[in-house]
């Protein structure tokens, strides 16, 4: 008994240690960027490097937060990310359910084809998508961009969520059906809560992909009020040089929404969802 406790404690120490090490490795390079965002432009390129900003300045952040153009691009990207997540979950969840539970002819072929459509490299689809957008007069359209993002992401999401649906014991759903629940009802009440972690993971995936996308946003918009976050970042890179203070401040601000969304989705990563579900 005592040795098991000691072993668990040792394992805990090891766990905290490794996680801590991971955090240090993840953060160290970013700390450099963060420090730079608080420096005056004239101190950014000093060598030997100025480790602690002196003087500390918040001007880069205040400039960004008071700029209409910056707030606009953040808004646009938020709409696009939110829309893609909504569309993605709405399409991928039932799709994954069907893929996991139903048996029908041609299922294999359809599933593989769906996956294959997301395998064409992003850069190769850019020009044809652009030409399609021109012909259909769909440039600068939130909806079209969300569809394009979805076309790329949803197939992969279906395959991923399928894995989650498959490990939900069928008995639970069957029990609900016997109790008089309809099929969509069973899906909504039984399956969906149990595949929460998968849905949360996919939501974060979509958010980061759309938020950090540059090419699709640059190609499918040519009006300034529709530009996205990553396109806006380029404004800190001018022909007379990169304005590193602005650049780093922008980069740091850009990570904030993702981290907020992630913190919010944390509680969906609930453990042991199927514990005790099968017994009795």
């Amino acid at each position, binding site marked *: 008994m005592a040795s098991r406790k000691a072993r668990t404690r040792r394992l805990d120490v090891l766990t905290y240690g490794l996680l801590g090490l991971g955090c240090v490795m993840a953060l160290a390079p970013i700390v450099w960027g963060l420090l730079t965002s608080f420096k005056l432009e*004239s101190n*950014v390129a000093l060598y030997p490097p100025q480790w602690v900003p002196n003087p500390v300045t918040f001007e880069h952040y205040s400039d960004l937060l008071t700029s209409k153009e910056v707030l606009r691009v953040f808004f646009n990207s938020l709409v696009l990310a939110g829309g893609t997540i909504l569309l993605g979950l709405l399409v991928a969840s039932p799709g994954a359910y069907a893929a996991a539970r139903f048996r029908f002819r041609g299922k294999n072929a359809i599933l593989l084809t769906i996956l294959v459509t997301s395998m064409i490299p992003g850069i190769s689809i850019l020009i044809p998508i652009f030409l399609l957008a021109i012909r259909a007069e769909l*440039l600068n359209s939130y909806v079209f961009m969300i569809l394009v993002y979805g076309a790329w992401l949803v197939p992969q999401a279906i395959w991923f969520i399928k894995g989650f649906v498959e490990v939900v014991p069928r008995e639970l759903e069957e029990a609900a059906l016997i109790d008089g629940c309809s099929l969509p009802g069973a899906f909504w009440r039984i399956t969906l809560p149990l595949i929460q972690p998968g849905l949360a993971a996919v939501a974060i995936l979509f958010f980061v992909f759309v938020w950090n996308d540059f090419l699709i946003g640059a190609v499918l918009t040519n009006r300034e009020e529709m530009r996205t976050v990553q396109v806006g970042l*380029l404004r800190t890179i*001018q*022909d*007379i*040089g*990169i304005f590193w203070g602005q650049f780093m401040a922008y980069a740091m601000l850009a990570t904030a929404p993702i981290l907020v969304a992630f913190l919010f989705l944390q509680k969906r990563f609930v453990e042991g969802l199927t514990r005790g579900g099968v017994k009795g």
Partner: protein
Amino acid sequence: MKLIRIAACAVALACMPQLAAAATEIVFWNNFKVDKSPRGQALTDIVAKFEANNPDIKVRVEVAPFATVDANLIQGAAAGNTPDVVKIYNVALSLHVAAGSIQPLDPYLGKMDKTDWLLPWDTTVFDGKKYALPYEYRFFALQYRKDILDKAGVQVPTTWDEVCTAAGKINSPQVMGYGFGLSQAQAASILLEWADDMALAAGGSWLDAKGRAIPNNPAGLKFMQTVADLVGKCKASSQAVVGYTYEAVHQGLAGGTIAMAGMGTHRYEALRAAGAKDNLRWAPPPSFEKGKPAPVHVLGWNLVMGKHTKHPQEAMRFMEYMMSPEVQVAVARAGEMPTRKSTYDDAWFKTPEAGAMRDWAQYIARNGKAGQYPAGWLGFGQILASETQAIVLKGLAPAQALANVVERYNKAQAEGK
């Protein structure tokens, strides 16, 4: 004349409320954003004054950063939707003419003075039509850290041999003697600017009139040999140059880890502001013959009219205004070199702060030429980068490197679209 102008302004201002309702909006793609920087503030004032003097026109300034403006404009033209006025870099002009994304200005030019320009009018004429009005100029000059050169007791070099020896004396793992960049990232921009002028300084050019690379090119060979000598014979630069971009060389100069480098004059003020302050000086680019100044290709941003603009008259009025000497003085004070001769008569140019710009203008008036940049120029840069990297990393013979460049480029151009 002035009295009439004032009177006209007064009348216009009085009529403004009524006219404001009927204002035409033109879209102007600028290469930098409107912010607190000197350029940004100057532009705000310039546009405000234009709108005040022309109440029937409203200018919407949008930012089209240099990295994406060419692609954006061509895409826009394909979509049938372009801005009215765009800032385009001169190197990309032939690309846009060929792609049909900009239109000739001749129908709208009226009586614009064709002689009051630092460089000849024909510089931006393609197929007999005038396509662009130069807005500002820059060229590739030698920029160096006076503090480092003084400490090493070295004179500012005027020829490439002198660069080699001087930089060789300074070069150490802490400070690179002569900095340059061979990276393929950033479209190999610093390499292209350097190689472009080097061929010119050696009395030749890389491509012939048909846009094909010239074999056994003595000018090209001189360039390749210089690269080889800098890293080899003189040990003026380390192999690190293989991965350097324009930004890396800029930051090295700003921080004093590079002693001297070829840099565009547009970076001069930014370098000084980045911490180098008065230690950063400029000198004419080194030549291959002592005592003879090196000719340079003049680069810079131009104003062009989008192909599908719905308001060409208004667009031209804005462009003419931007070319006026008063605006050009404001542009100069914000750090960009104006393009009209008469601008330099302004009193500001006699002040000490205008010293560098005055000297630059004189230099290009005497030694500046216009370059020709076919659509394959960026591809040429990638290949040139690859072969010069081989010179530095593998000791490839300059003559062989040149032959490779010529072969690869001509093959790529023939094959392929």
